[in-house]
């Protein structure tokens, strides 16, 4: 059996050949320099929200210091420049996702709003009583509750793709769920609680064979791997900026142009109209039809900077680094006998969900916090998934591109301390 020390040596040798220099990357994140409870901060909660590189912080600051005005309105210099930067950020997202056109990118507050938007516009218009929406056991509450709200309004039925004990979707069961009543599939690309990367391309192919559109929740996928919406052929793809090292309060809905055009608006207000009289309003073209009100201008510009940042590092390098950490951390945590890992599929993001026998995850969280280690303890907004495993909560360590093997070592030492403390 490979030992943690063995992997450590191997990783050390490998890292000598890699262009990805995590020490230098960490220098880009000012927040990581601080100490918590007298210890260096070990941040292992990037799946909840990632820290921000200086490039993003500076882009937001520069926007407010030198570039800010409302967009799509003013005839003056600043407004034109802000509009250019905002639309430039949209173009960056388009390239990042491989979308055909920039108008297929709608800026929203986050993935939650994106899914609600699709449920409340596409869902309300095209889904009817007795229709079925297929989601999976892995979903975050944000890809469950909007469909339940629509179900209760319309009399729909939700069908759930089950998983096996490793946290993988049961694809044969999924195929069986697809029927004449299925009108939409909404599924995660990567589980926030387990790290499972789902076979979305196959999920989409099977749905499309029956003419069913597919929405993909890409929140946990975009920070870890390249995504190409045209290659996937998904109909909708959503993600939040703050998990991709960008600002909070900005997110993205990608939709195929034909679908977005067929959908009614989400909210009414300024910017989403072309003409308004008291008798009748004509709506603006996509994507503006879905962007009522003054948007998060600096947030969009910051997201553009985040995309530039991760693209500059390169997803091959980021994925290699994170996969090495995953392997190292899985091996190291498995050495603690009383620890049970959830989510053991091969194809997963660097997320480790676990419980320690006899120690509640909240207590694990407090002990680790005392060591300056930030992890998440709870149900991860995925209570049905917790129910599937018969637990109410787990402890979750989730890694980002700035994490190191030393972070893993600190986590393992903290876990041992928790075991000793409550043992």
């Amino acid at each position, binding site marked *: 059996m490979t030992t943690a020390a063995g992997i450590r040596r191997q990783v050390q040798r490998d890292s000598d050949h890699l262009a990805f220099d995590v020490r230098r990357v960490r220098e880009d994140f000012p927040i990581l320099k601080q100490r918590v*409870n*007298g210890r260096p901060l070990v941040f292992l909660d990037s799946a909840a929200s990632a820290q921000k590189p200086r490039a993003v912080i500076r882009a937001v600051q520069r926007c407010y210091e030198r570039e800010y005005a409302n967009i799509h309105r003013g005839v003056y210099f600043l407004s034109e420049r802000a509009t250019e930067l905002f639309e430039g950020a949209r173009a960056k997202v388009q390239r990042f996702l491989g979308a055909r056109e920039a108008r297929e990118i709608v800026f929203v507050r986050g993935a939650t709003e994106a899914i609600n938007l699709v449920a409340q516009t596409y869902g309300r218009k095209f889904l009817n009583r007795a229709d079925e929406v297929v989601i999976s056991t892995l979903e975050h509450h944000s890809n469950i509750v909007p469909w339940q709200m629509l179900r209760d309004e319309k009399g729909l039925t939700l069908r759930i793709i089950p998983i096996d004990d490793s946290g993988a979707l049961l694809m044969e069961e999924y195929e069986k769920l697809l029927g004449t009543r299925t009108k939409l599939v909404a599924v995660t690309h990567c589980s926030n609680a387990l790290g499972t990367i789902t076979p979305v391309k196959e999920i989409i192919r099977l749905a499309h064979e029956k003419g069913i559109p597919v929405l993909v929740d890409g929140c946990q996928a975009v920070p870890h791997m390249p995504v190409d919406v045209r290659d996937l052929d998904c109909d909708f793809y959503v993600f939040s900026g703050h998990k991709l090292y960008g600002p909070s309060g900005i997110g993205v809905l990608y939709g195929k142009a034909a679908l977005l055009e067929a959908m009614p608006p989400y909210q009414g207000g300024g910017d989403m109209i072309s003409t308004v009289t008291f008798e009748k309003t004509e709506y603006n073209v996509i994507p503006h039809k879905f962007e009522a009100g003054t948007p998060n201008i600096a947030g969009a510009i910051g997201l553009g900077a985040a995309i530039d940042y991760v693209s500059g590092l390169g997803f091959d390098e980021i994925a290699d680094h994170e996969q090495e950490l995953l392997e190292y951390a899985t091996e190291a945590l498995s050495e603690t006998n009383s620890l049970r890992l959830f989510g053991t599929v091969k194809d997963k993001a660097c997320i480790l969900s676990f419980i320690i026998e006899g*120690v*509640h*995850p*909240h*207590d694990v969280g*407090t*002990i680790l916090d*005392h060591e300056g280690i930030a992890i998440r*303890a*709870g*149900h991860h907004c995925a*209570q049905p998934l*917790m129910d599937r495993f018969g637990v*109410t*909560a787990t402890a979750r360590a989730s890694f980002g591109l700035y994490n190191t093997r030393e972070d893993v070592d600190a986590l393992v030492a903290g876990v041992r301390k928790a075991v000793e*403390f*409550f043992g």
Partner: protein
Amino acid sequence: MTFDLRELYQEVILDHAKQPRNFGHPPGCNRQAKGHNPLCGDRLTVYLTIDDGVVTDAAFDGAGCAISMASASLMTEMVKNKTEAEAHSLFKGFHAMVVGDQAENAENAGDGVDLGKLAVFSGVREYPVRVKCATLPWHAFAAALKGKQEDVTTEE
């Protein structure tokens, strides 16, 4: 600033967390209420036997972290054989102590509330996110006292 973990997890707390007292559902109880902390999923039920205005028996069952289990266990010991009014002022005194509310503390000191063993939870106030763990069983207890039917949560 560091704060010793032992201030939070005192021996008494660890002991009660590992071996909760009065754990179970007594058949003779005449009031009960459920408590739920939606942040962490902890759930417990408090069972009381009230006889002529006196809490003659108190028990609980459920699952949760060390703080909530120990708090429930010690609570059931402390409220037994208290009048409803005495038990309620224990709840008020305990709440003031763990949230670190000076005004509330002063007010309760005036009432002469003796928290006794419950003082082991004083360290909780240094951990704001854990306060709800300690107060969850007490909120359920207060609801059971009032004969409330609906579940209580820490997010009210």
